């Protein structure tokens, strides 16, 4: 199959929000996020206004993805507790959840496990907002969703190529698209006005050494991705495991026991999370 022209890819990804498969509620949300003067109050109002979104937000917030002690019962409480960035990310995850399940079997489970692992690592590193790492873990592969939504046939050949050559999916993506899903995700995240840290993590989660401001956060998602694949949770498009970036490993400085602690907690959380998200 021919390669797709890179400008075509970029413009298709930037026009994603016009696709009929994108739910209306997500379109409204994107409009809201585009506006820099949108306040926490506006977002709280937006959630409360829609009973389905309210239910989904509360279910997600009370899941092991975020790991809050105790139960959060109301959107107001959530909004106050979480702050603007986390609430934005939370809403995006809720909206992207269905899309993710639709485009690739196993991608949701992979992302869920990455979200939990990233949060546990952030906690271990003493980061102030481990919930932001949850969201980054959940959305790091959003570029795959974008490519699959716009170029499904090409993505089929990407997966076949990765399988045939025994390479990781991003190598095959680069061969067919000229870019990988990290770049596609970065374009989508920019266009959709994601918070800055998310844009950087999504764009560099396979090359965390290039990350400029959020190098620890990016390294966390990079390692979480590798551990989750190594453990065998979910499916992210290939059966290989990407190589660890030495610098990311050094920056995080986890011992074998640290990682085993994280994995143990991940196992329990995955049981509970799968129960919540079986539909």
């Amino acid at each position: 199959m021919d390669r797709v022209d890179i400008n075509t890819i970029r413009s298709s990804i930037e026009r994603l929000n016009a696709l009929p498969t994108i739910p209306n509620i997500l379109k409204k949300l994107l409009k809201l996020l585009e506006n820099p003067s949108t306040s926490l109050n506006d977002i709280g109002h937006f959630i409360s206004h829609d009973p389905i979104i309210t239910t989904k937000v509360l279910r997600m917030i009370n899941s092991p993805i975020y790991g809050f002690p105790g139960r959060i019962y109301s959107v107001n409480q959530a909004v106050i507790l979480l702050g603007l960035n986390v609430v934005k990310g939370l809403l995006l995850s809720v909206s992207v959840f269905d899309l993710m399940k639709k485009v690739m079997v196993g991608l949701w489970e992979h992302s869920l496990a990455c979200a939990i692992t990233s949060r546990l690592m952030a906690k271990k590193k003493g980061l102030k907002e481990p919930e932001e790492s949850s969201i980054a873990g959940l959305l790091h592969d959003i570029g795959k969703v974008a490519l699959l939504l716009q170029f499904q046939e090409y993505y089929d050949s990407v997966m076949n190529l990765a399988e045939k050559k025994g390479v990781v999916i991003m190598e095959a993506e680069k061969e067919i698209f000229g870019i990988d899903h990290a770049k596609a995700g970065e374009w989508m995240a920019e266009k959709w006005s994601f918070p800055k840290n998310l844009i950087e993590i999504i764009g560099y989660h396979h090359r965390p050494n290039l990350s400029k401001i959020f190098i620890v956060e990016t390294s966390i998602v990079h390692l979480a991705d590798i551990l989750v694949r190594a453990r065998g949770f979910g499916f992210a498009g290939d059966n290989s495991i990407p190589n660890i970036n030495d610098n990311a490993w050094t920056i995080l400085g986890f011992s074998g026991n640290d990682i085993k602690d994280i994995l143990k907690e991940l196992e329990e959380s995955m049981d509970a999370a799968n129960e919540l998200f079986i539909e």
Partner: protein
Amino acid sequence: MPRIPIDMITPGMCLAEPVTNENGLVLINEGTELTETIIEKLKNMNLQSLRIKGESGPSNTKEEMLAALDERFKRVKSKPLMITIKNIIKEHIEELYGSG
């Protein structure tokens, strides 16, 4: 212990953990053999899935898990750090099944 979606629960399966209400009060004890009537009630409670005793369900043996791990790492270049990571995961899987 496999967790089975509620739609796939059939009479005769045995609960591997108690079913509780929101406050943690036990409604149905661990070990209870499920009947049509109980399954109907569980569905009405909006439960999504249950832990079931025995072999029913997609639980893998330790040997299967470790073989799958080898398979996943087959194509990884022999980078020392990747071998470290594989060994950590291997120990983790072994601990999941107890040291025996």
